[in-house]
């Protein structure tokens, strides 16, 4: 979080480095590699990486060895037909799968070069560093303030002024502060807000715990077009300070906001490249068929 508030992250994270949120400046940390892929984009540090990730739900295999490098301070979109494994992949990136019974994850998921599935790594800590916004806005049945303050409180922040600072800062980053103040809605239930506003409360809730990576699973699919565009605008602003991974079935949302795009079909990343390349001249026939709407 910028603006002088204390960093709520405890010192001495298990070998995981502290993010430098200063926009646009990459300070390379130990273990972080630079990727020159896709070749038509300038090289960038790799924020997250999956290596040969396979996911099984009981007998069913959802991912069949996915290698994906997520470039820092960019938006990476993952597109693909329903059931292709997009959400499974996203849930691997912050160990959300830990919470689902019968799930087995194989391969490696690296956050700044550190395996987040290593035995000594705390899943809850990973979920703080790698936040998630879901398809359907899911604010808690609490006030807007309490929704946003929820995470920082759980991480031990009790000082009222500090919490107020975090809530305002987070709501501003989520482009919601002015609307909330105008409607005097800070102390009212978040459930009374519009769908688009609720989704931005959820985003503010994620931002309040200072994540480094934000995972977005169809964040605008339940919203009207104007609210959806507002979320897209936000993503474009937030990527200067965060790394964003977006899963979407809306190809045009991906083409509008993403820097890079991966096409996932039948649990395999069949093509990954810069967004213009993927949408204008995909190399893989199945990727071309998918973006052309020939396979669904």
């Amino acid at each position, binding site marked *: 979080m910028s603006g002088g508030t204390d960093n709520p992250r405890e010192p001495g994270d298990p070998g995981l480095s502290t993010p430098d949120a200063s926009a646009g400046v990459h300070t390379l940390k130990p273990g972080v590699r630079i990727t020159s892929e896709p070749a038509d984009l300038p090289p960038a540090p790799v924020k997250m990486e999956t290596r040969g990730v396979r996911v099984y739900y009981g007998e069913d295999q959802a991912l069949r060895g996915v290698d994906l490098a997520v470039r820092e301070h960019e938006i990476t979109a993952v597109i693909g037909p329903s059931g292709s494994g997009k959400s499974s992949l996203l849930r691997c990136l912050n160990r959300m799968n830990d919470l689902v019974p019968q799930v087995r994850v194989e391969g490696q998921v690296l956050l700044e070069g550190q395996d987040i599935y290593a035995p000594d790594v705390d899943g809850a800590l990973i979920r703080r560093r790698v936040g998630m916004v879901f398809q359907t806005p899911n604010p808690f049945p609490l006030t807007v303030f309490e929704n946003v303050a929820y995470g920082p409180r759980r991480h031990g922040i009790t000082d009222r002024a500090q919490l107020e600072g975090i809530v305002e800062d987070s709501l501003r980053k989520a482009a919601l502060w002015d609307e909330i103040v105008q409607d005097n809605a800070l102390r009212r239930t978040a459930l009374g807000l519009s769908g688009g506003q609720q989704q931005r409360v959820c985003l503010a809730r994620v931002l309040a715990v200072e994540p480094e990576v934000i995972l977005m699973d169809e964040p605008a699919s339940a919203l009207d077009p104007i609210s959806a565009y507002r979320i897209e605008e936000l993503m474009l602003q937030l990527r200067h300070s965060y790394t964003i991974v977006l899963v979407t079935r809306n*190809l045009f949302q991906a083409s509008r906001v993403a820097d890079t795009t991966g096409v996932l079909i039948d649990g395999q990343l069949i093509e990954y490249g810069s967004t213009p390349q993927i949408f*204008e*001249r995909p*190399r893989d026939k199945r990727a071309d*068929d998918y*973006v*052309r*709407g*020939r396979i669904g």
Partner: protein
Amino acid sequence: MPMLRAAFAADMEDLEKQLVRMGDFVESMLASAIKALAEQNEALANEVILRDDLADEMDLTIEQRCMRLLALQQPLGHDLRTIGTALKIIADLERIGDYSVDIARVAKSLVHEPYFKPLVDIPAMAAIASEMLRGAIRSFVNKDLELVRQVCQRDDEVDRAWHSLLRELMASMERDPSLVRQATAFILVARYLERIADHVTNIAERVNYAETGEMTELVRGHRPHLGDGLGGGLPERDSDPPT
């Protein structure tokens, strides 16, 4: 697997057909213009001039269709490249139509005077340009990259013919200044044909882009020059010492 977006696929097929019709139409304008010149047929020259409105109308209709497909269907991948290519191709075809009209106008201006030499090289050059045009359109329909390559190669033949004709006609004018009017007219026609071949090469390069995603110039330096200059300057005189 069932075909999704069948209506869109049918629209794309119609677009290709319209483009082929425009290609055929413009090619017939070129052929008629050359015939009018060779046979000193004023009526045919007038017909070519009148047909230009139809070519322009086809250009507009196809452009509107492409814009509608872009707006309503949001094509991606190969479809996007095909529509982008169609938009470029119609601009080149429209220009070829305009050059055919220019040739028809030259034909009209010469219709009442005997030619000082038999017209051989210009029809031969026009035949190559026409074959190139038919090949480029066929390569678009059949997605035939080998044909694209052949079309691009023939641009060199047209360039050589242009330079040789220019040299020859200039020499004729120097020998006999009374030929200036007619020889200049033939130079203009040869120049129009040379530029038509350049536009056809553009079309072939676009087909290559549509099929491969690679936007490259397949013939170096073929691009039509801005303005109507002689692109590369005048040839040396036959009497000039070789450099």
